[in-house]
């Protein structure tokens, strides 16, 4: 199965502490381990929400809202696409990550609909 791992960061902390080189290196090591295990099939990091846009739909009406999205407590800051054999496997991998803050969300992606 495929899961989307969403890295959610607290709005304030995201701006307050950029990752140190040590943290980046630890993350790299972890990411490499995942790649070597055939787990990572896609990933990406997002620019801060100040550069993002939102569109709200209301019938035919479309409203564009400029970032930053200050009213939201946790914002998606990055994502991974993992190929795993169960949600539990994804949890086990995530436990091994070097992260010391933030929330990471694991969501299964629907596949083979109609089967």
């Amino acid at each position, binding site marked *: 199965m495929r899961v989307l791992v969403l890295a959610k960061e607290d709005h304030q902390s995201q701006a307050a502490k950029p990752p140190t080189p040590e943290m980046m290196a630890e993350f790299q090591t972890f990411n490499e381990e995942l*790649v070597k*295990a*055939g787990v990572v*099939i896609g990933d990406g990091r997002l620019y801060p929400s100040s550069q993002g846009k939102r569109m709200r739909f209301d019938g035919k009406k479309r409203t564009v809202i400029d970032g930053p999205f200050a009213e939201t407590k946790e914002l998606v800051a990055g994502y991974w*696409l993992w190929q795993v*054999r169960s949600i*539990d496997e994804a949890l086990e991998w995530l436990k091994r990550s070097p992260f010391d803050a933030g929330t990471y969300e694991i969501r299964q992606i629907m596949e*083979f*609909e109609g*089967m």
Partner: protein
Amino acid sequence: MTELSPAATEAHRAIEAIWRIESARLIAGLARVVGDIGTAEELAQDALVAALEQWPISGVPEKPGAWLMGTAKHRAIDLLRRRQTLERKHEEIGRDIERAQEVIDPEAAMDEDVGDELLGLIFMACHPVLSKDARVALTLRVLGGLTTEEIARAFLVPVSTIAQRIVRAKRTLTEARVRFEVPAGPERVARLASVLEVIYLIFNEGYSATAGDDLVRPALCEEALRLGRILAELITTEAEVHGLVALMEIQASRLRARIGPSGEAILLLDQNRSRWDRLLIRRGLAALERAERLGGAMGPYALQAAIAACHARASTAADTDWPRMVALYDAVAELAPSPVIELNRAVAVGMAFGPAAGLALVDGLVSEPPLSTYHLLPAVRGDLLRKLGRSAEARAEFERAASLTQNVAERKLLQRRAAECTAEGMAG
């Protein structure tokens, strides 16, 4: 049996997931020390049993992989000591124990050797001394971490058959004195070919299930892809490894487009291309590029991947670069002549230069023995005849194809084709 507490249930689920992650590395590390897969697997299983006893009470350790490795290695040393009292020479045992002790440090056991150990296990499980079936079963068991039951279910055979196959495979490896090693030199090429063959067999069993009601068993495709991706990270400089990964990624990109709403098969040229998985196509094209950069454009897997890529790059079936496709099939046919390749080439020729040209080639294949019971031959012939307006002959071919396939979903598709021909015949 007593009811498990929620914490224990959670621990069990965690252990199962950890086993899936760690078992191959664990068995590989142990096989290096004890020399054979059978013993390595038993030791790993013992460690798993110990975890199942202890972790629900003590909690899952911070580094579960290292815990399992440490536990199993201790048992391995005990085992080697016991063997010492048997027939083997002292100095040899001494070396074995030294080796075991070297890796007893769980931290050390997890470092740079892991890649080589894993490779050693892959080469051992896929050793050419074993039959294809045995290699497939053993690979899924020791590298995929699948249980015998899961493998049996995937291949729709009795559990006892798979169990037997694995037992016999391990015995064969021992009897043939197959060493735990990463082969080098000329032997490496042949051994690697055997590994790639096994991975592709697993993929194909998932992709075009040869028996049963399901047209595809995605779990087998996913497992083969996972093994291929791992191998491509372990052996970065062998073009064919990337060629195989490219082939599997691109073929897998079409998995969800191959099956209609009622489980029926949809042929490649009839598929809704917007349902093709763009991510897998992109990954496949990147892997193919890597194979080509390594000078492997003409390798058998890279060539097949190039054919798959030709489809993947075309936004509609009509946009496909058919003349290039014919050239690629020419190259495949030269490399590995086979009636099945000739049949595929005939399809490409039919698309590039018209159905009559394709049919002439297919007619030349009808008497080829391996194709006489191959359902795709009459299916292709029927398709070309139909395009030439020869509905009655086409219908007979589709009916024959339907009677030859073991796959229920495919049979339905072919029967539908036959019925369409009847309708066309009446209309004409």
